[in-house]
């Protein structure tokens, strides 16, 4: 009798404990991820799409049972294209919302603004946009292209026979850190290839520049000096539409003066009649036009999620997709959302690219990805005309700038460092 009673009590206690733990679990039954993309202001045009991409990925993972048995919940904030506000919102996400990871930022200046916050609070940021390199933070995973995965191959292509054999270059950019650094690397690269400074023209314009008449005329004049000339454009955001309109109207044919752009994708071309632009180039790691099963499935999923079959997909969306998948895999592997554990699990993580091949996360927090160069078509798509044979590992520190060529980024033992000339834990 006594034992039965005791058994009953034990069972009750056990049951209580189980329900208790269930209640406890219910409280943190969700894994929160932060979405830090501008939904208003000048960058909303590009970043809103990425917010939707993250929401789509979250929706997708929840449909297939969540992560570690928990539901994933996206916390969306709007930093409103205001760089200091990015830092405030990042702090809010990490301190108040206690998110496991943040997907966000577009411009380099916004990334630089949140960097100290992520390092101070040991957060995780997945940055999905091509950028100027020269950085490797312990708290950031860069899923967009580094210069050696976009700018350098593009210029090599322009110099090749297929690309027209360009010998003179115009470097046009918006006046901020990404174009200036990229052009510094390109100038060093071109000089190394035997192209003198006299054959390089650099020009910067403010954000949102809309009157391109003079600059396009200057490019024409620069191109008429007897050598094949190509334009490398790091023009960002809204300024591209009037730039391309002016190019088209002044009748600059792509065979004569090809323009290769690093910030113009399917999304930017959507507001434009691309008829006069056929043949101008773009360099990315992803094009919507690539025929692959994974890509078709992704496009279909996107159209279903956004409820509009006219919407395009672009490279930063693929980078967001890869970043999110890798993070989810790393969380599964680590069995926890703890930042340090997830970071360790990230290295060597692989996700199939949407365009074929496999993206690998390297120890310098950059991906190995294929590089594609495409020509703009009259339907606003970009068709691949050249691609690398395999994946190119992203290089945090450019080999073409003397002071950064010496630096190594490697966050595993014995280096454990983002910009070192020697390992931190080297044996003496």
């Amino acid at each position, binding site marked *: 009798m006594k034992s039965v009673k005791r058994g009953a009590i034990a069972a009750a206690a056990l049951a209580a404990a189980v329900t208790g733990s269930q209640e406890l679990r219910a409280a943190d039954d969700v894994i929160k991820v932060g979405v830090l993309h501008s*939904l*208003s*202001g*000048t960058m*909303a*045009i590009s970043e*809103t*799409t990425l917010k939707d991409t993250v929401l789509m990925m979250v929706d997708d993972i929840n449909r297939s049972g969540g992560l570690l048995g928990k539901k994933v919940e996206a916390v969306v904030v709007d930093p409103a294209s205001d760089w200091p506000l990015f830092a405030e919102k990042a702090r809010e996400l990490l301190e108040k919302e206690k998110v496991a990871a943040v997907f966000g930022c577009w411009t380099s200046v916004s990334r630089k603004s949140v960097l100290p916050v992520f390092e101070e609070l040991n957060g995780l940021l997945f940055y999905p946009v091509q950028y100027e390199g020269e950085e490797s933070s312990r708290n950031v995973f860069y899923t967009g292209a580094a210069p050696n995965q976009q700018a350098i191959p593009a210029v090599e292509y322009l110099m090749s*026979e*297929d*690309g*027209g054999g360009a010998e003179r270059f115009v470097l046009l950019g918006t*006046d901020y850190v990404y174009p200036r650094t990229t052009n510094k690397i390109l100038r060093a690269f071109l000089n190394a290839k035997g192209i*003198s400074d006299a054959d390089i023209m650099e*020009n*910067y*314009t*403010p954000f*949102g*520049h*809309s*009157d391109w*008449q*003079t*600059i396009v*005329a200057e490019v*024409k*004049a620069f*191109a*008429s*000096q*007897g*050598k094949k000339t190509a334009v490398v454009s790091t023009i960002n955001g*809204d300024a591209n*539409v*009037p730039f391309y*309109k*002016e190019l088209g*109207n*002044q*009748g600059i044919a*792509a*065979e*004569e003066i090809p323009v290769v752009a690093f910030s113009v994708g399917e*999304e*930017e071309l*959507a*507001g*434009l*009649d691309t008829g*006069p632009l*056929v*043949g101008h*180039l773009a360099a990315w790691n992803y094009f919507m036009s690539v*025929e692959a099963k994974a890509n078709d499935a992704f496009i279909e999923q996107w159209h279903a999620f956004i409820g509009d079959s006219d919407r395009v997909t672009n490279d930063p969306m693929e980078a967001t997709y890869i970043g999110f998948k890798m993070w989810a895999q790393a969380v599964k592997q680590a069995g926890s959302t703890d930042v340090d554990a997830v970071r360790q699990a990230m290295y060597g993580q692989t996700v199939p690219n949407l365009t074929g091949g496999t993206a690998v996360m390297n120890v310098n927090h950059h991906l190995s990805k294929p590089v594609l160069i495409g*020509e703009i*078509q*009259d339907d606003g798509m970009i*068709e691949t*005309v050249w691609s690398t044979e395999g994946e190119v590992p992203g290089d945090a520190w450019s080999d073409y700038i003397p002071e950064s060529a010496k630096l190594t980024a490697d966050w595993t033992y014995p280096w454990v460092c983002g910009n070192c000339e020697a390992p931190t834990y080297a044996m003496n």
Partner: protein
Amino acid sequence: MMSFGRLARSLLFLAVTAALLLPATAAAEVSADLKGLAERSNDAKAAAVERLAAGGEARAVAILQAFLDGRLFRTKEDDRFVIGARSGGGYVIADAVTGEALGEVGKRALRKVRINNRLRQLVKGKLGSLTLGSPDPAARIRAADAVFRSERAEMTPALQAALEREQDAKVAARLRRALAATQLARSDDKETRIAALRTLADFVDPEVRALAAAVAALGTDGTPAEPDSEIRAAAQETLDEIERGLAFNGFLANVFQGVSLGSVLLLAAIGLAITFGVMGVINMAHGEMVMLGAYTTFVVQEVFRAAAPGLFDLSLLVAVPAAFLVTAAVGVGIERGVIRFLYGRPLETLLATWGLSLILQQLVRSVFGPTNREVGNPSWMSGAWEVAGGLTLTYNRIWIIVFALAVFAVLVLVIRFSRYGLQMRAVTQNRAMASSMGIRTGWVDAMTFGLGSGIAGMAGVALSQIDNVSPNLGQGYIIDSFMVVVFGGVGNLWGTLVGALSLGLVNKFLEPYAGAVLGKILVLVAIILFIQKRPRGLFALRGRALEA
């Protein structure tokens, strides 16, 4: 895209030429070359283009043209080469070799035979040599230009023959240019080359300049590219002559660009000249009126696309009054709802209208989405008028200058001669007196604000042709607009005109030397200094209006 009539005519013509000149190649050979076009390697593709063009068959021209236009496909189903013409979401296809019609298929059923810039240039050159004898002068000009760019030695006799036949002076000039360029590049005879350089000196053209510069230039190692010193001297002479012409044309182009920028500034500022200049309301939402005008254009064009695609070219003519009415209505709403409570309190007006501008932006973002909207250019606003080498005036800019001046003229007439204009001037000069004379001052205020906003909306129609149609469109113009109005003299329409044009010109003449960023800063500094000296702007209003 080439019209069917013209395509058919040129095909017929080519078939006749081909039949006269060359034996018909077997369809099998054409198919083999087609396979070559679809190779992965660009060298193989280029070889296939050469073979197709050498065959000279009419079919080959159609195939090359389709290849160039991106209309040459392979069907996924049976791997057949077809030429497609777009229709709706899919393509109407015909067999590339036989021309047999194969009906309509979806986009996804076809794989495009890819072309790139290198091949495009090659194909254009080949097509040019095949179409030098076309009956259409425009096609002959295109052909001559393609040959000019390809500089192929074997074209010399064909060019000479074509030049002798040619009646049209314009085409003849292009042919002479192509011939001289070919001779300069490919001939071994010194006299011929020097004569070619002399001929080229007549063409003030950046592309010809490039040719002469290549001959006159020093190589990378410091040795001259051209060993013969006489030829080099002739090239230098040609180069100098072309450069003189280009410099003059460059000056004219600069003036045009300055006037064009000025006209954009004028359009953006002219509405503000009324609301700020005449009424004294600091309207920070002025830029958003411009933006609403641009979105109205977008909506009108969507209606045209859906209901009457054939009349698309007329869409802007409908968009102008539509944008005026929409933004004028919004303007009247703002005036009646907000601003009339704040007259005489400029700071509150500034904050309230700034808040309104944010609300309007976010509203548009919610309704139309944050991404750019495509506003098409009607055909009469696309392309450029090539006046001379180095002087190309784009049609959209020309029309915007005309439009800006027309809007300005109409506005001046309305204010000077209409009954409403008289009332408006009366109210701004002396509100109490006007009121006691029986003028409904509240109504005049609302109408004036509506007029200013409506004009901003019309500016939006014009700006949609050269700028992004996005929720941020207006922000880029608000500062410039205030600058123009303050510089020109508050309350004076003529001041706005002169202010806008002079700012445009100064900006464009500074830009080549100072760059776009520094140029803008310099202009801003100059205006600040100018305002220190003349606080009332270029044309100050005198008399009682100042005290009002």
